[in-house]
């Protein structure tokens, strides 16, 4: 029994030290959702359990290594302990109770964080992931945006879709992720609790641009959200106004509309506007300059070239860049939208 005292004491010391350590260190990013609060509590519970189990095993382990080493002059063989049925039962049954308890506790949290709010009306956002960008549609307001803007303290139901391969909607500050899968609609419910700017980061391998498949998230107060909605709704009218030949609101130029489209359709996931090298060639200073193609020829980046590159990206591939741009834009974009994007590219001197 005396031999047991030391490792048991060690277990206590290690447990307290480890738990204290994890309390002191900031382990997770900023917490910004009510679901995340529950998940962080669960994290602490599991950390404490894991710390105690680890300390128990490692204390007996270290104590054995230190005190049962083979010393010269001792008998060659150890005592023939074959086993003990009561010990086997103990260390089968006790862990069983721990893991069943942990599972029940986790299950309760899962049902809590996925339950719909009652009677509050949820904001619905349809999220579409495609290689390699996100768009966010607010059906209530008729808005589609490349940026996810959410009112604080209101439950949001995300309907996740994907058009090509599997993506995963993940905002580390919200602590939740859910896959966006072609042919399936997945739901996830989040109540943002902390104003700030975050990012959606795609968490399921989706090809070349996966690392850069991010979209900005802004959590704002209700008033700012309503203001944003109004502005976006107006912006959604731009193409119609342009078609009708009306003079738009002064800020809503064709260049501005092109910038919006470039974001909305994911162009900026691969093309930088500040000269940074990304998956595709930068747009900065592109218009009117010479471009070296894969076959060694040069071409001037005029309007025709830009239009061709949008509708048939593989035809005139720029040297040094992979042939990964989707060929679906000729169906996705109207002529007016393409023209607006070209105007935007022209403006990036």
């Amino acid at each position, binding site marked *: 029994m005396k031999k047991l005292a030391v490792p048991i004491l060690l277990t206590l010391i290690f447990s307290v030290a480890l738990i204290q350590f994890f309390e002191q260190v900031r382990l997770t990013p900023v917490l910004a959702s009510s679901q995340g609060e529950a998940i962080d509590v669960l994290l602490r519970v599991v950390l404490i359990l894991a710390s105690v189990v680890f300390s128990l*095993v490692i204390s007996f382990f270290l104590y054995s290594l230190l005190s049962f080493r083979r010393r010269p002059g001792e008998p060659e063989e150890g*005592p023939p302990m074959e086993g003990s049925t009561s010990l086997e039962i103990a260390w089968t049954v006790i862990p069983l109770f721990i893991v069943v308890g942990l599972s029940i506790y986790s299950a309760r949290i899962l049902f809590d964080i996925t339950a719909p709010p009652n009677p509050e009306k949820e904001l619905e956002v349809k999220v579409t992931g495609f290689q390699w960008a996100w768009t966010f549609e607010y059906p209530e307001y008729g808005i589609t945006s490349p940026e996810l803007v959410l009112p604080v303290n209101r439950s949001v139901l995300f309907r996740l879709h994907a058009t090509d391969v599997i993506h995963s909607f993940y905002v580390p500050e919200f602590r939740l992720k859910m896959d966006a899968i*072609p042919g399936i609609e997945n739901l996830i419910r989040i109540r943002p609790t902390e104003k700030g700017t975050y990012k959606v980061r795609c968490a399921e391998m989706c090809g070349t641009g996966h690392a850069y498949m991010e979209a900005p998230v802004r959590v704002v107060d209700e008033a700012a959200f309503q203001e944003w909605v109004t502005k976006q709704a107006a912006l959604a009218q731009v193409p119609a106004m342009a078609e009708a030949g009306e003079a738009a609101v002064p800020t809503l130029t064709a260049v501005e509309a092109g910038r919006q489209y470039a974001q909305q359709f994911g162009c900026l996931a691969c093309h930088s506007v500040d000269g940074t090298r990304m998956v595709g060639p930068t747009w900065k200073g592109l218009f009117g300059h010479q471009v070296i193609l894969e076959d060694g020829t040069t071409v001037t980046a005029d309007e025709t070239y830009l239009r061709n590159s949008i509708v048939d990206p593989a035809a005139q591939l720029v040297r040094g860049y992979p042939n990964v741009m989707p060929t679906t834009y000729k169906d996705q974009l109207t002529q007016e939208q393409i023209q607006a994007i070209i105007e935007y590219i022209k403006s990036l001197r």
Partner: protein
Amino acid sequence: MDGAQTSLLITIVGALAGILVLDALWVLARRAGLNWATGKAMVMDFLSIGAIRGLIIGTMGAGGGMLLAMGVRAWQGRPAWEAAPVTAIGAIVGTLAFLAGVGAFRDWWQWGMGAEAGDPPHAHNGLAHWRRYFSFDPNHKVIGIQYTVTSLFLILSAGVLALLMRLELAEPGMQWITADSYNHIMGVHGIVMIAGILLGVGGMANYLVPLMIGAQDMAFPRLNALSYWLTPPGAILVLLSLAMGGFSTGWTGYPPLGARDPLGAQFFYLGVFLVGLSSILGSVNLLTTILKMRAPGMSLFRMPIFVWGILATSLIQLIATQFIGMAFLMVVLERLLGIGFFDPTRGGNVILFQHIFWFYSHPAVYIFVLPGLGVISELLPVFTRKPLFGYRAVALSSMGIAIIGFLVWAHHMFTVGLSNAASVAFMFSTMLVAVPTGVKFFNWLATLWEGKLSFETPMLFVLGAFVIFLIGGVTGPFLGAVPLDLHLHDTYFVVAHFHHTMFGGFVYPFLAAIYYWFPKATGRWYDEKLGKWHFWLMTVGFLMITSSMFRLGLLGMRRRIGDYDPTLGFGPWHLMATVGGFLVGLAMLIFLVNVVRSVRVGALAPANPWRSRSLEWQIPSPPPEENYSQPPVVVGRPYDYGVPGSVYVALGPAPAGK
């Protein structure tokens, strides 16, 4: 550009491997007493080696298969050349031709023709007859070495790929390779490691099981050799994928991405299929051998505990492997014939693939770790000089893990949109794995208790495995608890947890096994000092990698990305992981030097240097061609260290000549 880099990479890895092989060949040739006068004869000899013949005939077969496919297409009035179907036929015909060239079908063919094929050639013994290791040889000890060396080659190659990834990740931004190259290297690292681990398991099982149970060989020696020789074409196809545009899905191969990837993906799927086939055939052989060929008196509960691990692993391999084969074959059919199994626009279901895939690939991790845990249980009694505490519980816990392992697959899929009820069910089954795994840990602790411990290199790796697997174990419930997994899934936390289970459950025990049975297989000692350097460098390096990965994962660092947001401040942690990675690389280099040197010039080892009670140590080292001149008789329990007068085995008369 991408292709150029990958071919450069293949060239470097290939050149390194070539140098090693040439060096080994040179030494072996010298030891076989060859000189320049006999050199010419040796070249002729060389061409008669199975592997060389297989490669030549296999290449011709691949070309012939492609011509055949093009001929059929032309005859059908279609354009003769289309890369995907033509190369697929080429790969299949090439594999069969390789096997025929190696000589895998020779005896069966002769039997089929009504002739007596006679016994397999059993003329040689020991390392001097190096040609055996490059030929179709049915002796289980030769096959065990073949598996082990191939496994080390694959693991080291995949390790080089890991270092390339770590180099790229050391700071944010893309510095060394493109985003595509990163993805391709990441996928090949994963699948080649998995193939390497499967082959490592095969190596240990083939070499040790017949020796440990007192059998002359495996139940089906020719099938055994065929299982091994299926793996080189598999490995070649997977490595070729890098040159064929790569695959960007990672080793999991999820469609639709995998169905849209370039030609490289097809090579990857076909290569894995071959390795899987090898794995199934190997498990049939091992199950039969263990169940039917034990020495008289060796009841199941008198088997060495390592054999229990192999028994459990083989059961999983036999039952589960077909599922990954089927999943990958379905993607290949989707790619080649347009059958939309997993394509929602053609009535398929994307998630179906993941269910089939994980039905193998989760139990697969127990295929990897159960033999390793068996090594830990096998070696602990020897180095503590005590019986294995709770032998029956340890043996049955392996079976428990194997069975529960079949019920947990969807815990890899908590974010695909399972119903809450399904998630909770899979959470319960997942958490249950902790119980039999815990039983192993507690019995190991009780085995250490009051023992007479000594700390030679094999024991160090066993103890290292204990700690590393323990950390892998206690980080499991973080991922098993569904709500927490919604945060941690697909982050570095998973990567760190997984590598802890693989290093603790396979890599460390595998290395312990290589050091421990090195005197058995070669009759020589490894260098103890280099062994200790290997252990400490590797352990420090590995813990540097994973501690930063756990940290990054909790902070939300996604896995499988070659570049990360510089504003998150992840840089220093990644740098630490990269330094740790290169420490592990250095340690493995020391290991390689140790092994290659010790095979040639290591001090001669006595027959039973560890004073083990196990059967394989009661005969000379290296073991004679036929293992036991007379079947040994088992009369007691295997681990009765310290029990006065206890006897495990009664051997017949010593083999002649020794």
